[in-house]
């Protein structure tokens, strides 16, 4: 090493220690460099790839999604997409493939920097004119799934949860699962009624049959795919007690083995015509667990049979002596905390209203302040503690705001009164407006009173009028 020889020449009595120190420093730096290079050059094989499905048109909340794609609808001040991305980032994932509707790529990729996320987003546009299902979206990006990963995490863009992805992954690994679905008990919305005309709640829920102790999935039928009666196919041989549930929410977070996903999405597979992952491919994979498998007679590379021969474990698994596990096993991870899919107006409304208390739970580490420092709130304005105020929002004097969500760059003029309402980005409320329990996505330029309303088109508002339980949206052109 050149540094060493030059140093040794200089070495003389007094300075020796200092020089040695210098020398050690150089050596250490050298070593660090080596390590750094090594870690850049060679990484351990990645285990998991994440796919976020964000191309959904939001069919169950058309009043809101007419103007902006569903995945960019704001929840409090953040776009919906930030929540699943944050979930992935928390688990340590460094990149995610996001399937978006064509034309929205730029806006979607801006979400990341806008929300202070560090995850790399690779957005893959799909043409939404043909109304692709989730399975079609997956087929579209199949080539983007790396050949060497073990598992693919599929998340829907409308998932808001406080689950730790690591826990679900650990569960998946420990069970040697082929497919793990995140489920949680269905909870009715806390904030009711949602604005807009009164509608019947969406009733037909999914049916999930699991083994009550292990959580193994036995049967999945999506809501709407069955009539009044449902016949359980007699596919089971094990005697474990079953749990039939219609009160479980399928959170649309799946961890699937890459091999089986590729099998199902391949052109010549049995599910080539299936459009929805949840309603069609998931039940298909689950049902395949109990179909007789022709065991591959090749050499036992992993010594699996040898392991099971000596395994003293009492946990039933494919490594257990007496267990007859097929090569496909599906499990449901039952999460007991918060887990909501924001795909209807009531859930959207509910999550927005609860976001004040939830934000620490669902976005740990991403400190989005409830009162953004750049918001200007007049000292004479009354803004209740449980309101969320976004960046650049201007609240004038003599206003009264209770339990509201004001997204960024809103303007509230003097003398306006807002309660229990949600304002989208860039909404202006003119003076004298009274807004109660409403969802406002367009500026109110005239003085009016709104109760339980959804406003997406300001031109429908007339001066001095009172609106109750209405959706004020742009009328379709042909009318």
């Amino acid at each position, binding site marked *: 090493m050149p540094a060493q020889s030059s140093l040794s020449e200089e070495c003389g009595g007094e300075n020796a220690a200092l020089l040695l120190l210098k020398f050690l420093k150089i050596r250490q730096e050298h070593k660090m460099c080596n390590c750094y290079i090594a870690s850049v050059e060679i990484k351990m094989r990645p285990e998991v790839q994440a796919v976020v499905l964000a191309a959904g048109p939001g069919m169950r909340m058309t009043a809101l999604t007419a103007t902006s794609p569903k995945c960019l609808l704001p929840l409090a001040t953040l776009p919906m997409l930030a929540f699943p991305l944050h979930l992935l980032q928390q688990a340590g994932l460094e990149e995610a493939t996001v399937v978006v509707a064509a034309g929205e790529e730029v806006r979607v990729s801006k979400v990341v920097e806008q929300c202070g996320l560090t995850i790399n987003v690779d957005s893959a546009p799909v043409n939404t004119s043909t109304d692709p299902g989730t399975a079609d979206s997956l087929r579209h990006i199949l080539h983007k799934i790396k050949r060497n990963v073990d598992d693919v995490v599929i998340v829907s863009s409308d998932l808001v949860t406080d689950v730790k992805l690591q826990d679900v992954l650990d569960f998946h690994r420990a069970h040697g699962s082929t497919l793990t679905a995140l489920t949680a008990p269905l909870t009715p919305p806390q904030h009711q009624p949602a604005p807009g005309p009164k509608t019947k709640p969406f009733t037909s829920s999914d049916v999930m049959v699991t083994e009550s102790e292990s959580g193994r999935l036995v049967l999945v039928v999506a809501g709407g795919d069955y009539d009044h009666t449902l016949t359980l196919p007699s596919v089971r041989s094990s005697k474990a007690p079953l749990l039939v549930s219609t009160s479980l929410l399928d959170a649309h977070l799946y961890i699937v083995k890459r091999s089986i996903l590729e099998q199902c999405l391949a052109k010549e597979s049995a599910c080539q015509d299936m459009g929805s992952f949840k309603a069609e491919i998931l039940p298909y994979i689950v049902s395949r667990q109990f179909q007789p498998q022709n065991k591959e007679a090749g050499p036992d590379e992993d010594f699996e049979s*040898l392991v099971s021969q000596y395994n003293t474990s009492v946990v039933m698994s494919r490594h257990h002596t007496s267990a007859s596990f097929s090569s496909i096993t599906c499990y449901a991870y039952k999460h007991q905390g918060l887990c909501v899919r924001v795909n209807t107006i009531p859930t959207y409304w509910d999550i927005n209203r609860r976001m004040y208390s939830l934000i620490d739970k669902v976005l740990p580490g991403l400190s989005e302040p409830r009162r953004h420092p750049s918001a200007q709130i007049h000292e004479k304005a009354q803004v209740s503690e449980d309101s969320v105020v976004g960046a650049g929002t201007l609240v004038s004097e003599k206003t009264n705001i209770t339990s509201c969500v004001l997204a960024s760059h809103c303007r509230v003029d003097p003398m306006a009164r807002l309660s229990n309402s949600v304002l989208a980005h860039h909404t202006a409320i003119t003076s004298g407006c009274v807004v109660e329990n409403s969802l406002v996505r367009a500026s109110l330029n005239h003085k009016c009173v709104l109760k339980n309303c959804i406003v997406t088109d300001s031109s429908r508002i007339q001066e001095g009028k009172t609106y109750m339980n209405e959706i004020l949206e742009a009328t379709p052109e042909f009318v």
Partner: protein
Amino acid sequence: MERKARKQAKKAKKKGGDGNEESKQQQTGKGKTEDKEGQEESSKPKKTVKVDKTEKDVKKETNKSNKTVKVDKVKPAPTPSTSVPNKKEENKKKTPKEPVQEKQQQTQGSEVGGDEADGATGGKSKAELKRERREKQEAQRLAKMAAKTKAVEEKQPKKKVESQADKKSSTVDKKKKGSGDAGKSGKEKSGDKKSTKRRIPLLGHLTPPALQAPHAPVNSEIIHPAVRTLGIKMKDRVIDGSTARVISTLVALKKLINDYQTPESCDLSRDLAEKLAPNVEYLNACRPQAVAMDNAIRFLKHKVNSIAPNMPEGQAKDELRTAIEDYIKENITLASSAIASHAAYLMQPNDVILTFGYSGLVCEMVEAACKNGNIVNVVVADSPQPPSGLAMVQRLASLQVPTYYRLITDITNVMDKVTKVVVEAEAVMMNGAIQGLCGTTSLALAAATYHKPFIVLCHTYKFCNNDLTDSIVVNELGDADKVVWGPKGSNAGLLAGWQETRNLNVVSLVYDVTPASLVTVLVTEQSVLPTSAVPVIIRRNYADVLGQD
């Protein structure tokens, strides 16, 4: 080196600075640390009588030491941080960590030694080295003094300060090397968890079972996916029993080697050994390694180290893969059938065999005995938690062997019918002692009482050159909650809150140690041996692997 010394001094100073705050809390009288003190015993009574004076003294002394330290270019007056109050927890944490720390220091020491050797070739005289060492010692002494003066007040053992400083500086140094960060953070995390759990008297040195796998980000650059999956499976006891664990560990490491690519300008053997270490550490953090696993990993490391530096990567990897496969084949597959046939030879028609829990080897032996035409009856004694014997009964039933299932509490009732007791060992120690799953010793005692032969089956790769005389020094703690919740009944969970109950300790040990005197005969793949032959086997077969330490 001087840098290190400085760092130590700083750390020690910082500890000292913290001490002031802490002492206020501790002055209420904490008995626990007192007995550890030893040296400062004499200063204590003074302290309690004239607090004022000692405080003054301390101030003076700290000032003085500050000055002297300044001369030594240590940054003065560190601001006292507020993160101290859980000193007690740190105390606890330290005990199990010490071996690790020692290891770190050792490795570091060897490194420094290497550096010095390099330096010496560059013209460093002995006197210079000596001088440096003295300087370092001086700095340490000063740091110690500074810490001690405060420690007098806060009743903190001097030793601890020093070792903490050492530990910190060594971890910092290690981090600087840039490797194994995730593994380490995982370790620290498990350490945090330890402190929250209550320690059981006499068994405080054992690591409590990991509640969660050590934290490492998804797609970690250090931990291989196969290793991580295996770690979680071992932690959840999906894979249990030393033989199964050894096989799956080797398979996981084989996958790692498969995916491994040597970076440029690096030796395969050196770099791979470095890459293996954090993975092994991860497995260890998930569940403490079994003796057999330790042997198998040593074997693999030995193989990796002995790869010639100029060997092409593909060839080296092939060699390692075949080495692993051969190891499994020779030491497990073939050895098992040899053991089974040796042991079956000891069986006689209409023997009644008592065995314990699930054992693949015993099953194979019974199978071999049946093939020989000796119909044997098997009594499976099982521990209530975990009831692994159920799988044993199932497997024996499929062989159409007359089988009886009893709990271990009830073996005295069947002992006069039993003609032989056959168990499988988890490990065999140098002194002939048998490490088996907890409960094995009860069978050995019962066999000795009823004068029945106690036959132990064991692969020779599970032989270990340690001596064990009891099951306390080396053991593993199981999940005590499982014992409490074990049987499903109306009173399950009666002790659910045992951790809050004072003076109640629930212990679940994984292994026990049967002394050599209770073992009639040891059946290995090499031959049927008395326990006194264990050292011979270890010397003969494992000198190359076990010898390097």
